[in-house]
């Protein structure tokens, strides 16, 4: 299995973890070719995750914007409310086959944590989740959800108390109990084999889109748009279209308060090549290589790096990445709610915003598919707060 995407990727981790990575790589190589494993996974996708997810024609939005046709890939309708469950089902099944008794993971917004806690409950596997202190505060409901599902949640207050620190702490915990514990990474980041493995468990999104759009329109889309933090929903919807050069692949990163401020998480726009969290990729860092604090109101995009395959796709010009600010994402959040009656995750709203602008620039015979990677219930309180509306939660 190739460990790198061009110059990106690799395995930059402490020695104590290396044998565990090799063990996972071997198990993944074996089971991903195993018909029985794939049959079980397909069944889990259908019966637990509720796949295939719908490809929804956003007629109201399309009419209102007056340009390209917009389709939404409804990953928000999956069980647990986002695309995260696809990867969790894949890795949890793998961990079970490997005989692992404990799962640890990181979470940003809590979507990956909730998905992991849910499937751990179903599989009867002990689950320990690390979450930055800031995120624990802004996503308190998800913390309660994870605990309700039987997981242990540890609030991480080191560093900036966000996703990157949760990943650091999960790595530290893994070195303590590496022999019987499986680290279930939530995105296409980290050391090999995670970026490959998570992509393989997420690529079903793009495979379904191909089938669905051919059925609906008889042709491939002109552009596929997805938000990018670490980049798992984006790689999931991109991957099957990489070979189709005519399909534009567009990742949307979080510009927070703007690229001209210090408060953003726009890794491709403002970052440079470095090595962190086990991978060589693009990172927001200073001249000496310290990782910079990042900001986005969206906890799921609040990460200073990006998956190595995205860095590669960008380097060869196959995918492009554009920034969208908090304010713009909130516009899209409200727009989609009013226009289609769909409340998107604030992460996904970044992609919606970009697609709204793109649609206006394209002719009516063009097609845009947006990955609606998660539902927005978790963000309602925060958006209200942003808009100065007080909600009494009692």
């Amino acid at each position, binding site marked *: 299995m190739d*460990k790198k995407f061009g110059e990106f990727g*690799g*395995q*930059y*981790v*402490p*020695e*104590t973890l*290396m*044998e*565990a990575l090799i063990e996972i790589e071997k198990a993944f190589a074996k089971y991903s070719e195993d018909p029985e494993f794939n049959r079980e996974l397909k069944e889990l996708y259908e019966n637990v995750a509720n796949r295939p997810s719908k490809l929804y024609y956003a007629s109201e939005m399309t009419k209102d914007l007056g340009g390209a046709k917009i389709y939404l890939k409804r990953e928000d309708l999956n069980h647990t409310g986002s695309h995260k469950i696809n990867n969790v089902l894949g890795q949890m099944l793998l961990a079970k086959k490997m005989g692992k008794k404990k799962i640890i993971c990181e979470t940003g917004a809590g979507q990956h944590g909730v998905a992991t806690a849910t499937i751990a409950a179903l599989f009867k596997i002990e689950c320990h989740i690390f979450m930055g202190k800031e995120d624990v505060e802004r996503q308190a409901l998800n913390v309660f959800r994870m605990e309700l599902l039987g997981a242990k949640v540890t609030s991480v207050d*080191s*560093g900036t108390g966000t996703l*990157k*620190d949760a*990943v*650091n702490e999960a*790595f*530290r915990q893994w*070195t*303590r*109990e*590496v*022999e019987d514990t499986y680290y279930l990474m939530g995105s296409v980041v980290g050391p090999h084999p995670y970026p490959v493995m998570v992509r393989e468990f997420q690529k079903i999104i793009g495979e379904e889109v191909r089938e669905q759009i051919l059925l609906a329109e008889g042709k491939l889309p002109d552009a596929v748009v997805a938000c990018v933090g670490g980049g798992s929903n984006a790689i999931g919807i991109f991957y099957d279209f990489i070979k189709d050069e005519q399909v534009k692949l567009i990742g949307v990163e979080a510009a927070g308060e703007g690229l001209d401020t210090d408060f953003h998480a726009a890794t491709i726009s403002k970052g*440079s*090549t*470095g*090595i*962190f*969290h*086990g991978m*060589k990729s693009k*990172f927001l*860092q200073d*001249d*000496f*290589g*310290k*990782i*910079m604090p990042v900001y986005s109101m969206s906890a799921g995009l609040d990460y200073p790096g990006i998956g190595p395959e995205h860095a590669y796709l960008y380097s060869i010009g196959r995918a492009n990445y554009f920034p969208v600010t908090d304010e713009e994402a909130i516009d899209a959040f409200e727009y989609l709610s009013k226009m289609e009656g769909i409340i998107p995750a604030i992460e996904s709203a970044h992609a919606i915003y970009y697609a709204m602008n793109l649609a206006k620039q394209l002719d009516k015979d063009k097609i845009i598919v947006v990955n609606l990677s998660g539902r927005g219930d978790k963000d309602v309180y925060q958006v209200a707060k942003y808009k100065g509306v007080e909600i009494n939660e009692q």
Partner: protein
Amino acid sequence: MNNRIDLKFKELKESNKKALITFVTAGDPDIETSYKVIREMIAEGIDILEIGIPFSDPLAEGPTIEKASYRALASNTTTDDVFNLVKKLRVDYNIPIILMLYVNLIYKYGKDKFMGKCTEAGIDGLIIPDLPIEEVSELKSYASAKEIYIINLVAPTTKSDRLLKTVKESEGFIYCVSSLGVTGERKKITTDLSDFYNRLRSITNLPLALGFGLSNKKQIDGLKGGWDGFIIGSAIVNIIAQYGIDSPEYVGSFIKSLKN
């Protein structure tokens, strides 16, 4: 065999002694204190000095060294400050000096430029906790060109094929991680250390230094295996955390307690 690390281990072996290797994070709480702490440690007879360059996200460290890193960053300590600190030490001392740092600090600085600065400052080796043997080739040729050693780590989890590969590519000494987990003091080390030592000794003649979780003389004296050296980090950093700019004399007496 001109590297100070080799010469030191040869000298120690001839007099049947073990190496005391001690760690400090540069710039904790400021670079002047680090300089004084190091002078005290050398005066009390340490054999090899390990200096940590602070990093924003030291994911192989326990809370003690992690916090030291944050304190050093709060005093704006940069990689260049650490090179200057070593230059200043080299005026008076010929002790082997090793830098402990995360790979991104080297990558971003520029691999060639970084190694050049190491030679210029008088650095003998590098310990890079997030650079396993699989990725070491990324830096090896740059380091070798400037005669800087990259000190490889092995852990109790390292299996025999990778252990063999690691020792074959090692130079200076091998950093043997005592037990699972991150750096920091442990009440007890549960690894079968004599087995760990024997597995290594049967495949290499290089010096074997044990680190992670070592904190006092009694504990070190009780360790099984014929280790050639011991690495003490968090126990020293804890003293610095407690006494701050007044810590040099306390670190000095701690080193004395290890030597007796």
